């Protein structure tokens, strides 16, 4: 009887271990992305980047104007 219980426990333990292994895949944020909210972050980053880009272009144009002034 004791041996039977022990062996059943061993089998259960083995099953738990094997389940744990199959579930121990790499945790990725697929839930975050599939929920759609990550697009908000992407939109914020895009706005930030476009803002900085436009600022760079205005600085570029300002320097071009100064260069034209110096040539005269």
């Amino acid at each position, binding site marked *: 009887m004791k041996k039977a219980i022990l062996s059943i426990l061993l089998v259960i333990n083995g099953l738990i271990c094997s389940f744990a292994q199959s579930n121990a*895949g*790499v*945790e*990725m*944020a697929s839930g975050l*992305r599939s929920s759609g909210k*990550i*697009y908000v*972050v*992407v939109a914020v*980053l*895009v706005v930030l*980047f*476009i803002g900085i*880009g436009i600022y*760079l*272009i205005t*600085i*570029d144009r300002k*320097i071009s104007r*100064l*260069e034209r002034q*110096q040539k005269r």
Partner: protein
Amino acid sequence: MKHYWWKILAMLLLLYSIVMGILGNVPALPIVHETIRNVYFHVPMWFSMFTLYFISVVYSIKYLSSNNPRHDLVAVESVNVGIIFCMLGLATGMIWANFTWGAPWPNDPKTNGSAIATLMYLAYLVLRNALEEEQKRGRISAIYNIFAFPIMIVLMYILPKNTDSLHPGAGGNSGFGDFDLDGSMKAVLYPAAVGWILVGIWLMSLRFRIRNLEYGRHQAEY
């Protein structure tokens, strides 16, 4: 085509890398998890820095043969912007290392090498400021720059490759290319790298043009 087409291209490439860098598919790896996306933003900093330092050394060589002070100005402004990219690379790397390697500065040979290389380029700027006479300053700093470039490559690329490093692709570590089986990461990393390199050159050209304006006014006064 207008002369500023490459600036538009840089912006479009970086917009693509921001959108695809966050929404695109990445390999699922232990420890790094989603931080693998940092590859698209941390690594291009170093590509830009290498490119700017390379432009700097090319213009130093040109200065030695031409004695044109404008070539010297391109060389120094390339180093100025290169150092900014290096600082950004170090800062982003420290944040990433803190969450994946357990410490912001785990004495990795590549990290240490890049810190030493940065000090070497800061010394280049100090050397320039220490010399008063324009021609002397140009020549000495150009020669220093030509020596600094290969040492920087050895410190940041060759030595870490040959020793044990936490960085991928070094000392027998597998690089990211080994996990990126369908090339979906390469499709974001390379456009991002080109975009950041172009932005680096853009910033350098802006700084050079300001410097050139100052130089022109300085010449007009005498």
